[in-house]
């Protein structure tokens, strides 16, 4: 039980760091609040769906950038989709990076676009790198009710 307490504290610290660093915002809290005993892993499921999409979309944009000339409207379509889902799940640094990218796309400056795209990719990797171990630990520790049951 003591181990569980330590792990819970670790989880809480990890979680707080996401908000402090701004990689997640209050919309993520809304997602967490939708969890209940019938859907104990709801937030993880939502984030898994998000990463499934975001990884694919980022790879698609990267691939489209390699072509010449670049299909700008198509890339913007993908970015618009990703912007929507990152906003819905509270992935705020990813959302900001996408917004910057779309602004640059309007100017048509491919070189600046490529640079900013790398920033987006980095923010995305950072988010993934933070959340994956967090969810693993969360599953290990189990839902709060279990921890509070008297020995």
């Amino acid at each position, binding site marked *: 039980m003591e181990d569980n307490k330590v792990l819970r504290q670790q989880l809480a610290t990890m979680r707080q760091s996401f908000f402090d660093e701004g990689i997640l915002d209050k919309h993520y809290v809304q*997602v967490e609040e939708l969890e*209940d005993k019938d859907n104990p892993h709801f937030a993880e*499921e*939502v984030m898994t*769906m998000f990463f499934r999409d975001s990884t694919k979309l980022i790879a698609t944009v990267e691939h489209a950038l390699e072509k010449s000339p670049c299909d700008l409207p198509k890339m913007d379509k993908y970015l618009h989709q990703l912007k929507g*889902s990152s*906003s*819905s799940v509270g992935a705020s640094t990813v959302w900001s990076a996408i917004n910057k990218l779309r602004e640059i796309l309007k100017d048509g400056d491919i070189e600046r676009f490529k640079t900013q795209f790398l920033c987006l990719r980095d923010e995305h990797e950072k988010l993934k790198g933070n959340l994956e171990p967090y969810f693993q630990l969360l599953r290990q520790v189990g839902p709060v009710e279990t921890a509070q049951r008297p020995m």
Partner: protein
Amino acid sequence: MESGFASSSKGFMENVDQPHVLAVDDSDIDRKLIEKLLKNFSCKVTTAENGPMALEFLGLGDHQNHSNISKVNLVITDYCMPGMTGYELLKKIKESSVMKEVPVVIMSSENIPNRINKCLEEGAQMFMLKPIKQSDIKQLRCHLMNCRS
């Protein structure tokens, strides 16, 4: 239970224990979120990933079938969808003699006054800005309970 289609003189949640909501969005993440939000407020939820499928469910598609008319108490739809937009879906519902009384709520991630006005003028009950929060659904419920047309 109410008979026939959603009565215009009743509010959306009144006299209906478990209002049936049709939620339309091309994003599966957003569909998952809106479904849970609505279920948390005791709604029965059917989701559709685009306008044509929504119309099909409502019996307004190619195969005219009105078995779902009396069941749906509210349609909530995303604005930006490929193919048929939420606005176009709204229009089709309002043009239908059997479904026009059903309240339609539009959701969008973009706060564009022209877009909002256009939807309200076409008969949308409400316009909600994404990301949708629990308090938005609560407000929706209150708004529609007090609504008498």
